[in-house]
C-alpha cells in the first residue's frame, strides 16, 4: 500500500514542478485538473490502514468531482471566454520559477525532518513535505504571474497544499464530513466569485493583466 501512496505523491510533485514551468494557460488548467484528482485520492490511500469505509469512498468521489472536474471546468471556460493571449506572462522567468520550486522541495524536506514528528508514520512525513512544496509553489505562482487568471490557479494550488497538510497532520478533520463539505462549498463559491470578477475585469480593461490595475494607491 505504501507504494501506491508514494507514486501518488511523486505525481503531485511532478504536477507542481510542471505548473511552475508551463507557459500556456490551457496546460496549466489541465495540470490543475490532474493535480486535483491526485490530491483527492491521497486520503483514500492513506486511510486504508483503518479500512475503507463507504463514507470515505463517497467523499473521494465528491472531491474528484469538485477538484478534478468542476473547478478545472470553470477555469477552462474562463480561459476560453476571457483570454485572447494565452501566454502565462511571468514576472520572473520559467527557469527561475522552476529553480525556486526545487529549492522549495529541499526546504520542505528539511522542515519536515526538523519537526521531530516521531508519532507520524513515514508516508505521512513524505506527504507533509509534498504538501509544503505544493503550498509554496502555489504562492510562487500567485505572486510572480501577471495574469489574474494565473493568480486564481496559484491560489487553488496553494489551497490543495493546505488541504494536504491537513490530511497529513489532523486526522479528526477528515471524519467530519459536514465541515469538509462546507470547506469545499467555500472553494466553489470563491472560484465562482473570482470568475465573475475576472470576466468584468476583462470587459473593462480588455485584458486580465493585473499590472493594468494601478489606480488605487497612496
Amino acid at each position, binding site marked *: 500500500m505504501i507504494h501506491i501512496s508514494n507514486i501518488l505523491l511523486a505525481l503531485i510533485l511532478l504536477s507542481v514542478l510542471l505548473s511552475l514551468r508551463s507557459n500556456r494557460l490551457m496546460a496549466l488548467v489541465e495540470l490543475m485538473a490532474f493535480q486535483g484528482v491526485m490530491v483527492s485520492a491521497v486520503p483514500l490511500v492513506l486511510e486504508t490502514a483503518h479500512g475503507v469505509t463507504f463514507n470515505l469512498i463517497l467523499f473521494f468521489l465528491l472531491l474528484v468531482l469538485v477538484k478534478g472536474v468542476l473547478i478545472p471546468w470553470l477555469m477552462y471556460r474562463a480561459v476560453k471566454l476571457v483570454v485572447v493571449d494565452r501566454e502565462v506572462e511571468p514576472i520572473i522567468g520559467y527557469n527561475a520559477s522552476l529553480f525556486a520550486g526545487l529549492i522549495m522541495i529541499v526546504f520542505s524536506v528539511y522542515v519536515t525532518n526538523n519537526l521531530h514528528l516521531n508519532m507520524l508514520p513515514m508516508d505521512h512525513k513524505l506527504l507533509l513535505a509534498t504538501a509544503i512544496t505544493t503550498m509554496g509553489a502555489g*504562492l510562487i505562482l500567485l505572486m510572480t504571474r501577471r495574469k489574474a487568471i494565473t493568480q486564481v490557479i496559484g491560489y487553488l494550488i496553494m489551497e490543495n497544499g493546505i488541504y494536504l497538510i491537513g490530511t497529513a497532520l489532523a486526522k479528526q*478533520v477528515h471524519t*467530519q464530513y*459536514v*465541515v469538509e463539505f462546507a470547506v469545499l462549498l467555500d472553494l466553489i463559491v470563491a472560484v465562482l*466569485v473570482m470568475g465573475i470578477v475576472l470576466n468584468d475585469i476583462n470587459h473593462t480593461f480588455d485584458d486580465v493583466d493585473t499590472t493594468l490595475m494601478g489606480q*488605487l494607491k497612496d
Partner: protein
Amino acid sequence: MLQSVFLLPFLAGTAVFFLPVKSGRLLLLATALFHVLITALEWFQATGPLQTQYFANTPEGMLVLGIMSFLFLLISIYTVFYMAEVEMSKEPVFNASMLLFLGAMSMVAVADHIIMLWVAVEATTLMSAPLIFVHRSKESLEATWKYVLICSVGIALALLGSFFIIFSMEMSTVHVPISFSSFNDVADQLNTVWLKAGFIFIVIGYGTKMGLAPMHTWLPDAHSEAPSPASALLSGALLNCAFLGVYRCHQLMVGAGLGDYSGNVLIAFGLVSMLVSAVFILNQTDYKRMLAYSSIENMGIIAVGIGIGGIAAFAAMLHMIHHSLIKSSLFLTTGNILLGYGTKSIDRTRGMLRLFPETAITFFAGFAGISGFPPFGLFISELLIVMGAIKTGRYVVISIFIFCLILIFAGASRLVMQMVFSSRDSDERLVPEQWSRALPPIILLLTSLTLVLWMPDSLFLTIQHAISSIGGTVNG
C-alpha cells in the same frame, strides 16, 4: 434556536435576489428587524442551539452579534433611502448581498467549531465581494480583485493555523471534539509548540481580514470604493468578526499558559497597524480612505488592548463597541457627503457647514468621537488602555501608542477642519439633505453617547464574562 440567526438572513437574501426592487427593500427591512429580535432572544439565552457540536452561544460572540444586528437595522433603513437617490441598476443584487453578508457574519459570531469558524469567515469575504464591485468602475473592480484575492490567501493561511491547532491536540493524549469550547477545557494539555505556530498563522490569516498591518493593503481600497452603506457594514461589523477569530485563539493560548506570547504578538501587530495608519492618514486626499485608515488604527488599538490584558482587555471590548457605532455613523455620513458633492476628494468638499449643516455637524461630531474626545466612549477606552499599560509597566508600548494617537489626530483634524469649516465659492448642491438619511448616523452617535452615560447591566456583565477567560477584569 441559535442557528436561525444566520439561516434567516441566508433565506431572505436568496429571496431578495429574485424579487422586484420594491418588495426586496421591504424584505431587507423586515429581515433586519427580525434579526434584532432573534439576537435579543439569544442575548438573554431564551433558546439554545440545536446541535452544540458546531455552534455555541458565547459572551464574546454575543457582543459581536449584538453590535452587528443593531448596526444592520440602522444601515438597512439608510440603504433604502440611499438607494432611492442613486438609482443602481443592480439593486436586487446589492440588497441580496447585504443580507447574505449579514448571514455569514452572524455565522462567524456563533461558530464554535474551529473549521466552521474558518468557513464562515471565508464566506463573509465571498458574500461581501459583490457589495464592493456593484458600480463596476475600473477602481471598484481593482478594489474587489485585491479584496477577494488578498483575503482568500490570508484566510487560507488561517486554515493552516487551524490545522496546527487541531494537531496540537492530536500530539497530546487528550481527544475532544474540535471546537473552541472543548479545546478551552483541555487547554493546558495541548502541545505548546504547535499551538504557537498555529496562533501565528491564525493572526496572519484573520488579521488580514481584520486589517492589521502589514496585511491591510486591501482595506483602504475596499472601504473607499464600496457604496457607503456597504463601507459602514465592512468597517463596523466585518472587522469585529475577524477580530473574534483572533480573540478565540488568544483565549485558547491564555488557557494553555501562553498568554504572554500571544499577547506580545497582538501588541506588536497592533502597534505596527497604528504606525502605518498614522503615516498614511497624514496626506490623504480622499475622505473615505482617511476613515478606512482610521479603522486600521482602531483595530490596532483593540489588538494592543487585548494583548496588554487586565483592565485594558475591558477597554478593548468597550473600544470595539464604540468604534463600530461611531465609524459606521461616519461612513453613512460620507454617503450623504458623496451624494451632495458628487466627489470623494477632500479638496472639493469644502464649506460643508454652510451647504449641508446637518451633515457637517454629524460628521464633525463623529470625528470628535473617533479621535477620542471626552463625551464619547473612545475617550474612556483609550484612557483605560493607557492605565492598563502603565499598571503592567509597558512604558515603551504606551509611548508609541500615545505618539500614534497624537499623530493621527493632528493629521485627520486638518483634513476634517478643511472639509467642514473652510469656504467654498459655488453653492451647487447635487442632492439636498434629507432627514431620512441624516437620522441613522445621528442615532448611532447618540447610542454611543448613551452607552457612556448609562451602560445596561447585562451588557456590562457580558463584557465581563467575555474577558474573564483571558484574565481581564474591570477593577484592574
